[in-house]
């Protein structure tokens, strides 16, 4: 039986974070897609994409890891849905790099000892929701409007960069996160640090850098009057949420700013049971905020 045309179906690459530190991203993604009746099927036997360390150490290794994942993804129907900004970036970079470089393509094929299958479209969840599913349908699926919630949409550095790779949105002035969360009735704030780096790579080696950069991100969101920050990247989340207490201690500022994964807020709006959204795993509890806004 062929599925009806308007039913969306995706293969799903969660990446390591979503099975570990960012479990709530994974849970809420699955919950949201189920609520929206979008098919999501995990790629079997997927491996780590190498994320930030691999390409700094060995380009061939990082390209091969992603090429292997792209090959594996062909076992499941549908375009490849990716939640983590870093995985998304690495998979897209691999496609671009290998498409334009015959020599590298041969090296990777040799390393994998298999023909390359790189053509599957790689899509970030944002793209799927905004374009494939559509903002109108998203708005129609809202059961619990987030009206009154002031959200600072945080793109970080990877989601739209480098300019020609992710093809997600305008590199310098993106609006896709605002458009998607705006469909739930939430209010988005205009703020200065939407695209600044959180310090990602330095989280273990130079925590001081992270405290400064992520601190500025939180301060900017606060200045703009946001109630919370919304992210689409486990690394950003780690730095803004897990380190928020440390940042507060280091800078002397008090933020108390819940940092949501975008799917947590969207799933909440789509009526997914709050018990399935992983709010309990967040270091800065969103409970007081959501209660104040009558969302819990």
């Amino acid at each position, binding site marked *: 039986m062929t599925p009806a045309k308007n039913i969306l179906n995706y293969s799903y690459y969660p990446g390591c974070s979503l099975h570990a530190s960012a479990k709530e991203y994974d849970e809420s993604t699955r919950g949201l897609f189920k609520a929206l009746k979008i098919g999501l099927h995990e790629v079997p036997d997927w491996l780590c994409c190498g994320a930030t360390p691999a390409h700094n150490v060995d380009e061939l290794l990082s390209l091969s890891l992603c090429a292997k994942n792209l090959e594996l993804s062909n076992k499941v129907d549908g375009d490849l849905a990716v939640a983590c900004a870093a995985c998304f970036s690495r998979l897209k970079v691999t496609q671009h790099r290998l498409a334009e470089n015959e020599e590298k393509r041969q090296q990777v094929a040799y390393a994998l000892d298999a023909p390359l299958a790189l053509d599957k479209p790689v899509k970030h969840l944002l793209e799927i929701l905004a374009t494939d599913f559509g903002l109108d349908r998203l708005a129609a699926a809202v059961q619990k409007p987030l009206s009154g919630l002031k959200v600072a949409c945080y793109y970080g550095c990877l989601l739209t960069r480098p300019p020609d790779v992710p093809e997600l949105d*305008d590199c*310098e*002035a993106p609006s896709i996160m605002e458009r998607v969360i705006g469909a739930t009735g939430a209010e988005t704030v205009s703020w*200065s*640090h939407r695209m*600044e780096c959180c310090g990602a790579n330095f989280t273990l080696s130079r925590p001081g850098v992270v405290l400064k950069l992520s601190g500025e991100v939180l301060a*900017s969101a606060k*200045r703009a009057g946001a109630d919370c920050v919304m992210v689409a990247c486990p690394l950003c989340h780690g730095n803004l949420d897990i380190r928020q207490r440390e940042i507060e201690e280091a800078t002397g500022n008090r933020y108390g700013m819940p940092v949501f994964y975008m799917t947590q807020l969207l799933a909440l709006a789509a009526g997914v049971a709050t018990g399935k959204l992983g709010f309990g795993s967040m270091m800065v509890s969103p409970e007081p905020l959501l209660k104040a806004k009558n969302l819990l």
Partner: protein
Amino acid sequence: MSRIGVFVCHCGENISRTVDVEKVAAEVGRLFGVAYTCDYKYMCSDPGQNLLKKAVAEHKLEGIVVAACSPRMHEKTFRNAAKAAGVNPFLCEMANIREHCSWVHEDRDEATAKAIDIVGMMVERVKRNKKLQPITVPVTKKALVIGGGIAGIQTALDIADSGHQVVLVEREPSIGGHMAQLSETFPTLDCSQCIMTPKMVDVVNHPNITLHTYAEIEAVDGYIGNFQVKVRKKARSVDMAKCTGCGICMAKCPQKKIPNSFDKNLGFRPAIYVPFPQAVPNTPVIDRENCTYFKTGKCGVCQKVCGPGAVDYTQEDEIVVEQVGAVVVATGFQLYDIGPKPAGSPIEGYGEFGYGTIPDVIDGLTFERLASASGPTGGKIQRPSDGTEPKSVVFVQCVGSRAREKGISYCSKICCMYTAKHTMLYKHKVHDGQAYVFFMDARTPGKGYDEFWRRSIEEEEAVYIRGMVSRLYQKGDKIVVMGSDVHVGVQVEIEADLVVLATAVQPREGADTLAQKLGISYDKYHFYSEAHAKLRPVECATAGIYLAGACQGPKDIPDTVAQASAAAAKVMTLFSRNELEREPIVAKVNERFCVGCLACRKVCPYGAVEEKEIRDRSGNLIKVVAYVNPGVCGGCGTCQATCPSKSVELDGYTDEQIMAMIEAL
């Protein structure tokens, strides 16, 4: 023709390094009809030309082939030499064995063989050349100058002072251009208005200048010496003959809050207005888009208060036709609008600089208006957002310029100097203020320029930071400028009260459509192209059209004025003669065979083809044929290639000649 001389040039070593020129001369000498051959190191030099003249006399040569460089380079030189030797200059041709042969080949034998072929082809062509006589056309001794900025004004005044008539057309309601908007000018800091407005008055008072302001070029026809120009004079809604310029209409206009574009929207103006108090002519125009009367029919205040009864709501656009002999294009520049990317523009914006969203991020011209005594603040430096005096100002250079990835790769030339000037103007008015400049390079090569730039650092204590700015963002009432200092290798953040962006210089909007009307060429940025970058810098490739000022490329005031005077000199040279000689290489129609399909007219890029009626003695129409106006024909040969009945041919490039060349191969 059986006595042809072939002269093979070494071009120093340019040709002889790859081509065996002696062999070429010897081989060509065997061709039928060649009476004399030789080779020489520099044919274009004086001894080289004398060699040619001597050979013509000694060997009674009837045709000449010079095997050397491109005809673009020296065809004229050798044709003049041929003429001096008594041979019709159009019986002298060049065989290009440099660009087409020695420069593009490495193998000496192959290049030599090819050179022999090229020369052989030209020999066959010259055998069939005809003695052509130059065409003469009359010259209308009146010039059109398009654009009333400093370039157009200088050109118009120079030509008019030489005793010739000038028509000056300006798009805006007043002449003066950007220079009238500036506060002080580098490198002397004299007030722009003080040197500009007297010239503007000279223009309007000059008996030889006809000034059309608030007017645009509608169409241009004709050719050098004989252009017909249609000028659309937009409806001013004010009768220029009656208006005394008293200004009561402006004072009484109930519309007061229309952003004043002359002040870069910092101030306001009424719906009936002159752009600035020193405007020339001092006659207001009604901005019909914002006028209550034109929008709703209810108001008419200006008409009621006008003593001389000059306000005329029924006025319509008027088309004026001018006959001129030369055109000078001086349409100037505009600053790159770095706000959100305009639709259809190939150039990307700088969203990260917040221009258009952060009110205290302004461009250079806006700063000029802030600093100008006649500006909206009376010369006080104030922030647009709250009117406070900024105590720290960051200037960012090269915004949009020299940024290939954003679409503009050229240097805008004036920004280093005007930013240095801005730091001085700022410091002269805000003594306790601090100016910072982010720069890539300081480019200050003009006379007195480097000294001026140094003054801004050494005396006015402007802090120059070498590096680019990555982002600007609003933080409270400050603007945080994030950048890098590549000399020290650190990242820099400055909290500024005001940010001034030195944005790229671009040609005026609509430069391309004007170029198409004039038939002149422009580069990929829409700057107009000169005929030769070094040797013909003020002429267009289209004869009779000249360039002045920033429409050709970014220029400061001294350069603009110099070029404007040069363009005027070229026009005066043209006007010094009563008749012009034109190259006779034009298309001719064989009227016996022409069937009058006029396919040639459709393809002619010069608009040179007309209809001609052939009548018998009693006046009965026999047929209609095509006729090529030799004064307009550019000699491109497109008609010849198009004609289905093979009845139009280009002199010097007839089918017979081309076939002979092919057969010679």
